[in-house]
């Protein structure tokens, strides 16, 4: 085909000069695992590219100037109104540049999608434990990117100098002023004097179009390079271990898929920009420090900070001629600070507590790390309460609740709801684990009831397929060395668990690694939860153990249970239990095999 001819020409030319054949072959054959949640990061990446493209277009027309002028443009409702050049040029982009409105709206929607995708991506990484060694650095880069993204978005929507964005800047300035010791100076330096001054928009502009995107581009490059170098994690499944990557090669499969995905992302943004109006600055009017409209909302990713400001009680101290505005700087810095700092430190905290220094490449299913999942859900709940409080005026209006009541509810629930979320999540995870255990032990209940010749009724259980079994079986042994040694050595505590800190660590380790013991399926229930699992299941651990282990390859199982005549049914169940043992013996013990994935296939998969 002509492909080879082209390659001969161009490829030959390049290779003569750069010696790339070997490297590119490796690159082309690089294996990419597949799972729908892996697309979340790609959405963020493509949104970023679209932001760069549309943003560049906007810079051709935007005037980052606060110089006042009187508008006489195409948007007649504002004819004769005084405004800044920044605002006027935004109107021009919208009403006098062909495609300008579309590009503006795509840009704004892309910013929102970018942040939403980062949040979702980050949650996916957290709940599947994909941040674990060796990926801690990429996790940190991701958090920095998220922070930069928030700033970039805030600065971006401040540029048009409309009434809404000006109010956002005013709040920013008020928050900066509240910082003890240096706040007033910081605010004066950023704004070039007292608010609003004439400098803030040109300054935000250069930060928005050069400095922050430059940093983000560099970090995204590093993020991708590290991901590429370390190879992507994979979801648990048949044949997937920490020592391999299972998937399709980058060329042509991943390239084509990801290319298609770029088109879909762009199409979604273009659709949103065509049919869903966003940030109609012409309706808000130009900024004036004198006015403010009700129901003002920042973009969604700033909503949590807004809610934190709203929920705070009016604490302010005056000490020795200085003002501590706890009512402002605490909500501005503390809640999000806790979440981001906590997220950044979490991989290291978890590692330290469990003592797990292994590499992990197969993801956890969220249920298999109940405490981690519960902590994540508690954090989401905390964030979510404050985020909702950021729109409490709208909630009060639409839900017909008194405005102050919404704030009081938020004041209570920001502390209570995360605890409830933690407890509930943990119980749900443990319950799902028991369900998995049940499936492993007994197969899938088909709902088909048969009557045996003896008159007994029995339900046909379909044994798990190999793929289903692999998903359920894969489970990181969360109890790391520290905890294990503490229990195992004859009463002598392991070095890691000695002393006061060691005891705390051992205690935390117990909490963090709480799980239903999957090895119960192999016949040794160990801890209390394993015991619960058994109680619920009725069939004891004894049943699987004597089952025909030696024969029990996975194929044998399906052979046994497949032609399920009435008598075979009971046998099928037993064989399934035995299969676990068989699987365990030829690999590692089930449950040690290593991680496990968070995918949502989990509960449904086996029933399909």
């Amino acid at each position: 085909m002509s492909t080879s001819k082209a390659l001969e020409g161009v490829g030959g030319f390049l290779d003569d000069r750069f010696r790339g054949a070997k490297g590119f072959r490796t690159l082309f054959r690089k294996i990419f695992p597949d799972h729908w949640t892996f697309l979340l990061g790609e959405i963020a990446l493509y949104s970023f590219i679209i932001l760069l493209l549309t943003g560049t277009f906007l810079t051709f027309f935007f005037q980052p100037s606060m110089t006042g002028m009187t508008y006489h443009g195409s948007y007649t409702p504002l004819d004769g109104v005084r405004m800044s050049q920044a605002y006027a040029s935004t109107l021009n982009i919208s009403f006098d540049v062909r495609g300008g409105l579309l590009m503006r709206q795509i840009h704004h929607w892309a910013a929102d999608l970018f942040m939403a995708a980062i949040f979702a991506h980050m949650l996916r990484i957290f709940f599947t434990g994909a941040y674990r060694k060796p990926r801690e650095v990429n996790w940190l880069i991701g958090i920095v990117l998220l922070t930069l993204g928030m700033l970039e978005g805030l600065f971006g929507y401040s540029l048009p100098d409309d009434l809404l964005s000006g109010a956002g800047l005013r709040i920013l300035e008020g928050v900066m002023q509240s910082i003890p010791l240096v706040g007033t100076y910081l605010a004066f330096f950023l704004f070039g004097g007292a608010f609003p001054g004439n400098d803030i928009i040109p300054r935000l502009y250069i930060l928005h179009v050069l400095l922050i995107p430059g940093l983000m581009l560099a970090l995204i490059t590093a993020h991708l390079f590290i991901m590429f170098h370390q190879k992507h994690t994979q979801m648990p499944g048949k044949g997937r271990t920490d020592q391999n990557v299972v998937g399709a090669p980058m060329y042509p499969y991943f390239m084509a898929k990801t290319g298609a995905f770029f088109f879909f992302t762009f199409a979604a943004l273009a659709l949103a920009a065509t049919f869903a109006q966003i940030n109609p600055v012409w309706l808000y009017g130009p900024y004036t420090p004198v006015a403010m409209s009700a129901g003002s909302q920042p973009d969604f990713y700033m909503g949590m900070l807004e809610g934190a400001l709203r929920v705070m009680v009016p604490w302010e101290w005056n000490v020795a001629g200085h003002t501590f505005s706890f009512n402002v700087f605490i909500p501005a810095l503390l809640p999000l600070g806790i979440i981001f700092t906590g997220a950044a430190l979490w991989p290291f905290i978890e590692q330290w507590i469990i003592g797990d220094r292994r590499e992990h490449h197969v993801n956890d299913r969220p249920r298999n790390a109940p405490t981690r999942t519960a902590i994540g859900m508690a954090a989401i709940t905390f964030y979510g309460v404050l985020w909702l409080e950021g729109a409490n005026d709208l909630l009060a209006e639409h839900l017909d609740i008194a405005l102050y009541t919404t704030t009081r509810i938020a004041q209570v629930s920001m502390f209570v709801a995360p605890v409830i979320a933690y407890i509930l999540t943990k119980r749900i995870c443990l319950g799902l684990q028991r369900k998995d255990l049940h499936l492993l032990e007994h197969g899938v209940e088909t709902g088909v009831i048969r009557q045996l010749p003896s008159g007994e009724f029995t339900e046909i259980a379909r044994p798990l397929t190999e793929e289903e079994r692999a998903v359920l079986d894969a489970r990181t042994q969360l109890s790391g060395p520290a905890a294990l040694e503490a229990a195992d050595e004859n009463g002598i505590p392991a070095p890691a668990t000695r002393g006061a800190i060691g005891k705390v660590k051992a205690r935390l380790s117990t909490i963090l690694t709480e799980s239903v013991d999957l090895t119960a399926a192999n016949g040794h229930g160990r801890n209390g939860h394993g015991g619960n699992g058994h109680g619920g299941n009725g069939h004891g651990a004894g049943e699987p153990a004597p089952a025909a282990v030696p024969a029990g390859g996975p194929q044998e199982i399906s052979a046994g249970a497949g032609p399920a005549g009435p008598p075979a049914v009971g046998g099928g169940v037993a064989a399934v239990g035995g299969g676990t043992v068989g699987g365990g013996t030829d690999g590692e013990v089930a449950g040690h095999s290593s991680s496990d994935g968070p995918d949502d296939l989990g509960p449904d998969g086996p029933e399909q």
Partner: protein
Amino acid sequence: MSEINGHGEPDGSPAEAGRIHQGPRRVIGTPPPAEARTLLGSGKPDSAAAVQRELPADPPDLRKAKIAERIVAACFILAMLAGIGFIAAYIGLEVHSIDAVLRSNLALGTSLSVAFLALGVGATIWVRHLMPDVEITEARKPLASPEPDRAAFAETFAEGAEASQFVKRPLLRRTLIAATLPIAVAPIVLLRDMGPLPGTSLRHTVWRKGVRLMEDVSYTPIRPADFSSPGGMITVIPEGYQYDDDALAKAATIIIKFRPEELEHPTVLNWTVDGIVAYSKICTHVGCPVSLYEQTTHHILCPCHQSTFNAPKGAEVIFGPAARPLPQLPITTNAEGYLVAQSDFHEPVGPSFWERG
């Protein structure tokens, strides 16, 4: 790669120089020799026995593939048409009025969306139904370098450190560090001129004795009689500062009319005129203009964070995160009967700051 100079390399597989020189060049349109497709990680691509192709050349069902091909082609044609439509819409539809912009945006956006959607759908069907399914397992090596490599690197590093004399000569080391410190601080110092020092500027506004209160929108002075109906709130600005945002950001003021008996301590009655009281419009929380007024309860509400101030009682905070009441502006009337300020505010307006006290 000098080895394959002049012959190039026909199929994108790794350049195994020896192999490529063997045999005639492949005829265009014929499949490549089997050894051209080596198994990834097979180690010795040269040993012909070990190689087999890793990716199937065709999907299993060629008849279905043919249908898929037509669908994909249709998608791409649609994308092409939509792309042409986009250009046509750009050329054909003018803007410069609200209606025209709506039409243009609809046409451009729809065509762009359809183009990308069709491309995406086409490419997806292509991957899913035309490219043969593969699942390949690739080995993953531990990320840590083998111990000898680490040791060798440590050695190299130590050698370099030694050769550089950095460790041996503390004088050099310390003076170098000493030299870099001021240079590292310099960029921060350079930022000093980004703004003036705050000084006492946050303590004052442009209100002075005798400055008239101008109605915000119409920019007209106000007589108490013009503002006679109790229950209203209007925004006023100091005369002469209509276009000075810096001044207005601190000086924006609201006046509210009460029946005189409604006003209570801590409202300063001497600072009011006929039940008209003036408060700073800048919220003491983070500085939004307090724009909402509830006539029945006399509550002033900040729309940003819902700090609520009790207007007849010195604008005390009754709900929300603001910690201080809105400062009251002393007002009176001048000889012509217009409302004027008696003086500036007696305390700093707007959000708190460290030096406020």
